[in-house]
């Protein structure tokens, strides 16, 4: 926005400076500056009738009598990392939460908390990235809110998204529906997002050639549901806490045991290397573009084939099976043939000492 620079050389009228480069408190006042920022940054990229109406709430139409509703706040740092940024993450996070219920994501809202001093150009980049992700997922951002807090009261930019998705009649997918005999399918290699973000922080003294997997998974879900139908019992994206924590949640909700085959779990070599150095187990590292599907055994080959035919499921593999007991446990058959428990993550993941 260089076309509006004010020339301060020589005598000038006391025209207020335009704040085009950095967010200032006035951008959150609700007044003219807020409107200008919203008009300039948000309305054009997000253009849709509900948002353009400019009313207190976006009005939308839905095609089913049941909706899935979800919300997710995003505080990732750094705001931009290899493979994505906070905007793409914010859209994909909510889209994926809706998709994991078997819903078709339709509309999102976005709430922005901006820290005074944030680069407007960076914010614009994030907004465009949100729009690109929304377009890819086929959803509209129909309502929004912007607040500005004083410098030091936030970490640059926080984004909350909420969303609704249409649930077709009879669709019943949930964490409590895993059954003994189900096959557990993982949509691709794990740990990319967590390691990419950690590497991008530059605090831990390593650079990993890893890109975040952040992606909208509703297309993948649509494909696997078309192939598996009611044989698909559980879908969940292993975000924070990783595959280990997500499987523990499902095992507890369903009262079953999940048995993993260590050799089958795909992890890219640079992720393995970074995890070894830091003392992390890839099973606990966050993903933002992967899902776990629990599918009745007879439907598993068709579901797997359908997943592999999609962009975000090309590397899908069977990683485990469900058995009746011990209820609520995740077991792992190790590469050398022994068996151990895979527990939930306890507290914060800490780099080890040596």
């Amino acid at each position, binding site marked *: 926005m260089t076309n509006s620079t004010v020339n301060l050389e020589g005598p000038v009228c006391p025209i207020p400076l335009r704040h085009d480069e950095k967010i200032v408190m006035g951008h959150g006042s609700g007044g003219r500056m807020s409107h200008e920022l919203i008009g300039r940054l948000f309305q054009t990229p997000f253009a849709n009738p509900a948002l353009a109406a400019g009313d207190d709430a976006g009005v939308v139409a839905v095609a089913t009598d049941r909706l899935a509703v979800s919300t997710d706040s995003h505080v990732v740092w750094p705001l931009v990392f290899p493979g994505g940024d906070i905007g793409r993450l914010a859209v994909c996070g909510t889209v994926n939460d809706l998709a994991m219920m078997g819903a078709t994501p339709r509309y999102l809202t976005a709430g922005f908390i901006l820290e005074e001093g944030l680069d407007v150009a960076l914010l614009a980049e994030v907004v465009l990235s949100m729009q690109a992700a929304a377009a890819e997922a086929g959803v509209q951002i129909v309502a929004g809110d912007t607040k500005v807090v004083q410098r030091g009261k936030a970490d640059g930019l926080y984004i909350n998204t909420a969303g609704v998705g249409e649930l077709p009649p009879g669709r019943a997918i949930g964490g409590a529906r895993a059954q003994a005999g189900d096959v557990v399918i993982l949509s691709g290699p794990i740990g990319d997002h967590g390691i990419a973000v950690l590497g991008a922080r530059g*605090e*831990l*003294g*390593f650079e990993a050639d890893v890109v975040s997997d952040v992606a909208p998974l509703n297309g993948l879900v649509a494909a696997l549901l078309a192939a598996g139908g009611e044989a698909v019992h559980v879908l969940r994206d292993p975000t924070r806490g990783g595959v280990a924590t997500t499987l523990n949640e499902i095992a507890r909700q369903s009262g079953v045991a999940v*048995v993993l*085959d260590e050799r089958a779990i795909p992890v890219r070599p640079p992720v393995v290397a970074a995890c070894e150095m*830091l*003392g992390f187990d890839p099973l606990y590292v966050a993903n933002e573009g992967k899902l776990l599907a629990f599918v009745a055994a007879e439907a598993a080959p068709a579901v797997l084939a359908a997943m592999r035919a999609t962009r975000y499921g090309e590397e899908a593999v069977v990683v485990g*099976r*469900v*058995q*009746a*007991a*011990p209820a609520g*446990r995740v*077991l792992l*058959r*190790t*590469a*050398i*043939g*022994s*068996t*151990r*428990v895979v*527990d939930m993550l*306890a*507290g*914060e993941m*800490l*780099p*080890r*000492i*040596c």
Partner: protein
Amino acid sequence: MEICGGQTHAIVRHGIDQLLPPQIELVHGPGCPVCVTPLELIDKALDIAARPNVIFTSYGDMLRVPGTGRDLFSVRAAGGDVRVVYSPLDAVKIAQANPDKQVVFFAIGFETTAPANAMSVVQARALGLKNYSVLVSHVCVPPAMHAILGSPHNRVQGFLAAGHVCAVMGYWEYPPIAAQYGVPIVVTGFEPLDVAQGILATVRQLEAGRHEVENAYGRAVTFEGNIPAQRVLEQVFEVRDRQWRGIGLIPASGWGLRAEYAEFDAERRWDVSDIHPQESPLCIAGQILQGLKKPHDCPAFGIQCTPESPLGATMVSSEGACAAYYRYGRHLSSDELRVTSDEFRTAPHSPTLHSSPVTRHSSLP
């Protein structure tokens, strides 16, 4: 006995001990740096970290280790500036960037972490930093082996020496120990096959009635070790008696800063004399660290003591034996670990153990 807590975790994580014949028992050793750091020193760290104008830096592992009534996380939550660093050289950078603050690094660990910690002091001096200091509690492996082997309760018949420690120090310190106590010592790595290789070499020696030092981790370890690292250690540190948490005082078992570097000693910079540490009366970490008991022998294990609310450091550290047993489900019965799904009932894949080269050193050259 595997000395190193990293090896204990590898063994439990991969279930190597479950696959061994019953005649072979792996006794878990004291090689968990976080576990043996004395409570008094942790309390000193908590005291310093809570002070205004201090940036307290530490390896991540130390943050959840309980001191008397609190840990570094709770100090941070109460407003202390506690930061995790991956290397002490990052702590030096923090000191450079914050000249108005005192930056303290919690320099704990075995021979593995000591060279980098020593190097941070050398760098701080070269940079002329007056706001950097280290709270030192370094310990060494060979004196601990002497203490274990010299104990009347000793059960250890052979050692898997810690591969990472030997990568720094070499293994020239071990032949006299093997000779004095008549135990085989095999330098061992951390992958499942490395550990199996170390066990195999140890058992072969025992079967043959030999007690020698062997290197089964030749891809990382040489007899001499890392000479430049040893020189930095020699330059900055001198041998001291050290308290080991749960074990007690072991003479000449660790390092402290030499007088020439006393200005970087956090214990001199801060008055931390008024410390009254109190161990949990329930915790048996000391007996576990000496190989006398296993984690599940402890009545508090998995009940009062869990990774979320640990009574002792062995339940917290990523190298602690109790944490390994808990994390990988050793508190469960074998019924609870039974795999019934058909496709997982296959026999263990047989790893090839006989092809890796093993170098043997029966005496000092």
